């Protein structure tokens, strides 16, 4: 019985791997992840952003804070991702090009943690940069940025430079840092600010060398 079970598992894995990799893997992993209430998720993040706006006046600082928060999330997310992906799929060896990394982030990472997929577009000629198009953003389910005239009535709060979903940039940056890629990540277009699609631009700055950091350097 155990033998048959193993056989079945192996057959499933081969099936999943043989179909076009990323999207199917993403869906399979998404099915196995514990789910949270989408509204609670959006409302929690919204409360966080609103509180940051009350604390800081400068939208650039707020974006930085969100990015830092995302960074903390990212370094933890990547561990979970590698653990789960490995367990389910005996994942093929690491990505050879940045494009593969981008596909994995877009189709598997985003799908697994958020339930939405992103598209990889605009891979630069030297293969060192790419853009992610996000069509659905679960963080902004109820959000409407107050227009500038509403803001003047309240207190001066210029929200036109606020990138509400900066946390995604931080997550990508943090996750890739743990796998030795230093990237710069920013929001180029934002649906909340009026554009048609959310676009995140990711640029590879350098490949870091493996190491445990300065504290552990041998003398």
């Amino acid at each position, binding site marked *: 019985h155990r033998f048959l079970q193993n056989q079945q598992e192996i057959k499933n894995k081969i099936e999943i791997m043989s179909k076009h990799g990323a999207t199917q893997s993403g869906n399979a992993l998404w099915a196995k992840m514990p789910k949270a209430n989408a*509204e609670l998720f*959006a*409302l929690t*993040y*919204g*409360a966080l*952003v*609103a509180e940051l706006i009350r604390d800081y006046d400068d939208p650039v600082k707020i974006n930085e804070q969100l990015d830092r928060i995302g960074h903390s999330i990212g370094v933890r997310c990547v561990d979970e991702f590698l653990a789960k992906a490995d367990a389910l799929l005996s994942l093929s060896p690491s990505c050879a090009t940045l494009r593969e990394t981008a596909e994995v982030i877009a189709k598997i990472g985003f799908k697994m943690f958020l339930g939405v997929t992103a598209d990889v577009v605009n891979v630069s000629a030297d293969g060192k940069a790419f853009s992610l198009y996000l069509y659905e953003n679960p963080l902004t*389910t*109820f*959000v*409407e*940025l*107050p*227009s500038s005239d*509403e803001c003047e*009535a309240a207190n001066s709060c210029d929200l036109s430079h606020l990138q509400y979903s900066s946390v995604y940039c931080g997550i990508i940056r943090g996750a890739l840092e743990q796998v030795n890629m230093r990237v710069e990540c920013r929001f180029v277009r934002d649906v909340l600010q009026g554009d048609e699609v959310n676009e995140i631009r990711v640029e590879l700055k350098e490949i870091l060398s493996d190491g445990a950091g300065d504290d552990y350097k041998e003398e």
Partner: protein
Amino acid sequence: MTSQQVLLFGIVGKNEPLYEAEFNKLPGSTTVDSITRQNYFVLHSALDLVEKAAWATNNMYLKVVDKVNQQQVSTFLTAGNIKFMLLHSGRSEDSIRNFFIDVYEVYVKLAMNPFYQYDKPITSKAFDTKVRAAARRYLS
């Protein structure tokens, strides 16, 4: 055309009105100032009666709470104690109830916006558009 056709819809919070809109204003006609002020007066003076009626029933929809001359004030009380009030001169209770329920849905979506604080004036244009659309659907 008399101002009888004009409906006044107001959302009143704990301390102050949060939103006001007039419906069915005939394009090109301007309501006389005194009539407008009278409408506001009638609507807001019904607030005490709303409180009284709220204790009498379990429902959110309080139907007609006040009648003055030819005008009636219907009210809908939200779960957060915000009062939707409509000044009209005789519409079917069902259409008013449906209108209030639609506005309630739009209000709840607005309340979920992290940038909107409870019991503050409503300035969102999207909200205004949706409320007017609901009015056109149920009240004209």
